[in-house]
Structure formats: structure tokens, C-alpha cells
């Protein structure tokens, strides 16, 4: 069947041409937009299936961070005395925990994209990026519920005497901070998911790595701990550090955290670099990972 008739694909017009390999940096945003309905259906599916047949339903979204916060408040706040004075340590830890957990669960779930969904990917085509994006949005819903709970607690403790909580104008930066957390989690997640198609070892490392990362980020303690230390600059290079600190500064004021615009700017650069590496790796494996996964 091999004759020269079949060499003219370029001369004929086709909507889609399937080629052996992707371009180096191949993220088709237009195509992704065409599948926006699918993204939202995945979000709905993830969210509904998460809480189906549970008695408490979406309340679980609040219970988990609440328990973590209580543990943090007791262990790190009261026993170890790591919480800064001047703010209520419960509100302080709740603020850090919910945003950190958003980041952590996005990262873990996105890093599972290829291996966890190979049964769908193996049978039908849609832009593979749909799933990571929908994961990030799904978690945003849980975060929304938690955030509402946080605001309630925050307002209540505003009126409790003895604490000075002074929210700043940085509250307006909150959407930007959320976007950054989402992009960073997406970037790291797709790097890992692209690599786990071949090396399953990484999947084992993820949950452990995320936990380590939490201790490198001011979640259980204040970044003040490193003030004046030699490694302070390196510590602040961790992209999640300025984000969490800024969020705390915005809601709880200067006694709780520091606001460092320069370090925050650097964290944006880090985020974009990681995201680019992620997209690069993703477009490399996206087409043929089904053969190796």
C-alpha cells in the first residue's frame, strides 16, 4: 500500500493533523477553552463524588482543617510556644492551614493526573490539561467553604479583647495570591505527574515531600523565627513562604507576619519558571504516555 500518493497531507486541508511528537512548548489554550464545559463537569464530578454517601457531606471540607488547626494550636502554639503574641493563635493557625492545605491537596491531586486517570485517557481524547485545571478548581470550592468558616472565626475574634488584629490593604491582593498558589501547585503537580508516567517512585515521594515542604513554610510557626538568621534569604526564596506570610499579614496585621514585596515578586518568578518546566514536560509526555504508564 505504500505509494507516493500519500505524501501530500500539507497540500490538503485538514482540521487536525496528528503528528508523532508535540512541539516543544505545546499548550493549546484555545482548545482548552473549547473544553470548558468538560472542565466544569469534572469539577462537579470530583466535588459530588467526594462527598456522596457521607453523612456530613461538604462539612468535611471544614472539619479536616479545623482538626489540624486545633492540633497546631495546642502543640505548636501552646506547648512549643511558636505562635506570635498579639494574635489569637487559633485564628493564626487556621489562616495558615486552609491556604496551605489548598496548595498541598492541589499538588497531590494534580501529580496523580496521568496515573490516576489512565483508564479515561486510554480510551478517549480530550486536552489532557483539562484534568489538572479542573482539580485546581475543585479544590477552590473546598477552600471557599473553609474561607467562609475562617472569616466567621476571624470576625468573632476581632471583638475578643486582648488581641490586636489589624487587617491591611493587602487583603485586596488575596485573589492574586490564590492564583499564585494555584499556578504553583499546578506547575509542581504536572512536573511530577509527567515524571511519574515513567518513574513511579516519585508518587511515593509526593506525600512525604509535601509534608516536608510544609515545615519549610511558615504554617506551623511564624517566619519571624528566621529573622536575622544567615539562611533567612534562602528561606524566603521558598515561593510558598512569602504567599502565606502575605496572606497572614493581610488579615492579621504586622504582629502576626511580615510583608516583603520583593520576596513576593521573586516568588512569582519562581512560580512561572516551574509552571513553564511543567508545561514543557507535560507536552512532551502527553501524547504517548499511554504506551508507558
Amino acid at each position: 500500500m505504500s505509494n507516493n500518493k500519500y505524501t501530500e497531507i500539507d497540500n490538503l486541508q485538514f482540521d487536525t493533523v496528528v503528528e508523532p511528537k508535540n512541539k516543544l512548548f505545546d499548550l493549546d489554550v484555545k482548545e482548552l477553552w473549547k473544553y470548558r464545559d468538560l472542565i466544569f463537569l469534572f469539577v462537579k464530578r470530583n466535588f459530588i463524588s467526594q462527598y456522596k454517601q457521607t453523612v456530613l457531606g461538604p462539612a468535611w471540607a471544614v472539619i479536616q482543617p479545623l482538626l489540624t488547626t486545633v492540633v497546631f494550636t495546642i502543640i505548636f502554639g501552646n506547648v512549643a510556644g511558636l505562635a506570635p503574641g498579639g494574635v489569637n493563635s487559633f485564628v493564626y493557625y487556621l489562616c495558615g492551614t486552609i491556604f496551605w492545605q489548598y496548595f498541598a491537596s492541589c499538588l497531590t491531586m494534580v501529580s496523580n493526573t496521568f496515573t490516576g486517570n489512565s483508564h479515561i485517557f486510554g480510551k478517549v481524547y480530550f486536552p489532557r490539561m483539562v484534568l489538572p485545571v479542573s482539580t485546581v478548581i475543585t479544590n477552590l470550592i473546598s477552600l471557599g467553604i473553609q474561607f467562609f468558616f475562617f472569616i466567621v472565626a476571624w470576625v468573632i475574634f476581632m471583638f475578643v479583647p486582648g488581641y490586636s488584629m489589624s487587617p491591611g490593604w493587602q487583603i485586596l491582593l488575596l485573589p492574586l495570591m490564590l492564583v499564585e498558589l494555584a499556578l504553583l501547585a499546578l506547575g509542581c503537580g504536572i512536573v511530577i505527574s509527567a515524571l511519574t508516567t515513567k518513574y513511579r517512585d516519585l508518587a511515593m515521594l509526593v506525600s512525604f515531600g509535601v509534608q516536608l515542604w510544609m515545615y519549610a513554610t511558615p504554617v506551623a510557626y511564624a517566619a519571624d523565627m528566621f529573622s536575622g538568621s544567615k539562611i533567612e534569604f534562602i528561606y524566603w526564596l521558598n515561593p510558598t513562604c512569602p504567599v502565606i506570610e502575605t496572606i497572614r499579614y493581610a488579615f492579621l496585621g504586622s504582629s502576626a507576619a511580615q510583608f516583603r514585596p520583593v520576596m513576593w515578586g521573586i516568588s512569582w518568578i519562581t512560580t512561572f519558571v516551574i509552571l513553564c518546566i511543567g508545561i514543557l514536560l507535560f507536552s512532551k509526555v502527553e501524547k504517548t504516555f499511554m504506551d508507558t504508564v
Partner: protein
Amino acid sequence: MNDLAIRIEHVSKQYRLGAIGGGTLKGDIQSFIARRRGEEDPNSKIGSDSAYHKNEKFLALDDVSFDVKKGEIVGIIGHNGAGKSTLLKLLSRVTAPTSGRIGINGRIASMLEVGTGFHPELTGRENVYMNGAILGMTKAEISAKFDEIVKFAEMEKFIDTPVKRYSSGMYVKLAFAVAAHLDSEIMVMDEVLAVGDMKFQDKCLGKMSDVSNQEGRTVLYVSHNMSTIKRLCNRCIVLDRGKVVFDGDVNDAVNIYLQNGKVEKKTFYSFENTEHKDYYLRQIKMLSNEVLNTKDCVFKIGEKIKCKLKCHSDCEESGVRLRVEIINKSDVVTGILFSDVLPTFSKNETLDVNFEIDTSQFMNGNYHAQFVLFKINNYGITETIDFIKGAMAFDIFSPTNEDNMEWFPQYGGASRLKDLSVTGINKYENR
């Protein structure tokens, strides 16, 4: 715009056999370092020749090219492992070809499996939307078709029940209904109709031909069921070991497919490249077989088939016999012919064994044969010396003017025994 729906240009798909990589990062790093130092890969199989394993690649598709015009219903048939599913996977963009390109006009709705993306916790309704969106429809498009889908699937009552409570038949019905009602220009189906009851299968086939004839959509359909292929398709492609062996009329294609995998009819068979099992002793090797008294390998019942079998002996061997096993087209052994003990083979000797096969007890049909050289050892056990599968093939027909009896193998068996010899008739006197 051209009138093509799909163009496949010199597409190949290669898979590596065996485990891919070390599977772990550590394994890959070890292999990499070993290769750098020129040492043996610590992760290769013990005792294996690594150069051999490096080349263990497998072409699931080998330089396949064809066009599909808009509105055609193309059947794709072939034996297991012929590359059908790989082709569909490439078309539905689940994986990419190793080389070559595929041009597609329009959206492809692929049904490589029924109910892809169905989530057991969601209701039928939610899953219809989910499934539709995965197949590339927008929410509005699905809403417009929703009632039609539910009606087609006969699922009005159960649409708000989680699909984990569905029977497998209901699952399939709903999934097919979604795919069939998509507005995609091309439908790719992989034996989805194998499930579901006869009534629903019929309905699906009807829907598929409607989709093509009335809506002008293109359908690619893979099946092992020749009757549905014949009923549905107006063109058929036969794949064999990754290559297109036939492309055209459906009936011809089905015949070729049914013949495929059988031994080819020819007058000279060389056994040089035949693979052998290790446990054959092979002190005598069969080298070739020539069928002497024919050009087309078609024989009349009762004709003798004359063969010349070339053998080579490595050492002296006596008591060797030849066994010819005749196999019909359904792969059933219909009979075995034994030779007498052959004359003693001397060391390093090449010789021809001429023999005849008497076909008087064969029935009409296509046959092939396998040759076995064997001897009975001192303990009374049969030792196989050499074994050749597919050593020859031939057709048998009965001349119509003679004994024109119809023969049904299911009643009459595979071979016809020698006619009864009536030895005498004694009449009784009527009183």
C-alpha cells in the same frame, strides 16, 4: 475543502516488548551508568544477549496508508494483534504514531469502550453530560439532544439513579446512545455492540447506518462479527500483522480475512526459516517440500498428491517414519497418514523422500498439512525428530458429474470412509 474525512499517511506504531525501562528511577540510572562504562546492564535479563533485547521492538502498525471519504462506513477486520485497535487508538488520539501523520476533518467521537468516564456515584443524567463532554460536546449541545438520548436508550425511568446500580446492559445502552447522538463528523467504534441484547444490537446497527446515510457522517467500525460488517459497511479494510492487506469490497475482504492465517497454497515450500521448538531432536531436518503433480494445488477426490520432501541427516539414524497430519480449515485434524519405516539415513546425507497422499477419503474443502518425522525408541516411546507446521496446503473438490452428493461436515464428519462394499444380496420370495 476536500471530501476526505481521514487521511492516514505512512503511519507506523512501534511498541517495545518486555518491561519498559527499569520501571524505577534507580533502575534507569543504574542502566545508564553501566552503559557509560561499557559494562553489562545490571537490569537486563540474566543470561540474555543484551544486543538482542535492545532490538526487541514490535511494529503494531507498519507503514499504513489509506483515505476515508466523508460519509463512508468503513469496516476494519483482522485477527487479534493485526493492529486494529492500535489504529483506532491513533485515530482517536489516545496515543501518537511513531512515524507518519494522520489528517482528520471534523470531530471524532471514539467509542473504544462503552461508558468511558462514567462515574459510578453520579446519576445517569449527570453521566450523560459527563460522557458527552468527554466526547467533545458542549453542555448546550447535550441538553438539546438529551431527551432523544434517553429515549433511544430506553432509560426514562432510571435516568436519575446512580449508575452504580445499573445492570451492565443498561450501562451499555446509555453509553451507546450518547455516542450515537453526538454531532461529531466521524464515529470510531470498537466492537461496542458485542454487549447488549439482540434487540438493542439491531437498533444500534440501524442507528449507525442512519447516521451515515442520512446525516452523512463517517463511521469506522471494528468487529470480529462478519455478519454485522457485511450488513453495515460499504468498504472494508483487512489488516494483518500491522499492514493493510486488502482495501475495498466488503465481501472480498471478509473472504480474505477468513482465509488469512492459513497456509498459502503453492507448489514449493521451503522450511529454511521455519522456527523449531527446542525439544525436537533434529538429527534429521526437513528442508523443503515440493508438490509435484499440480500447478494450483486443487485436487479431485481420489487423485493422488505427489510430494517430494527434502531431508538432511546429521548422523546415522534408522527406524525413522513420516507422519502427515491433515487439518481442515476449522483447524481440526481430519486424519493422519503414516509412512512405513524409511530406509536408514547415513551421516551427512541429503535426500528426497517421494511419497503420495491418497485423497479418496477426503471431502470437499480446504486443507493444510503438517509433517512429522519420528521414531519409536527402545522403550516404545515416540520421539519427535522434526516437525513442520504448514508443510503444504491444498483444496479438494468432487467432480460434479460423478457422485454428486452433498456433504455436511457437521453430520458426515471430516472425511469419508471407504464406500461400503456390498458383498451379495439374498432375495426372499414373496408369497
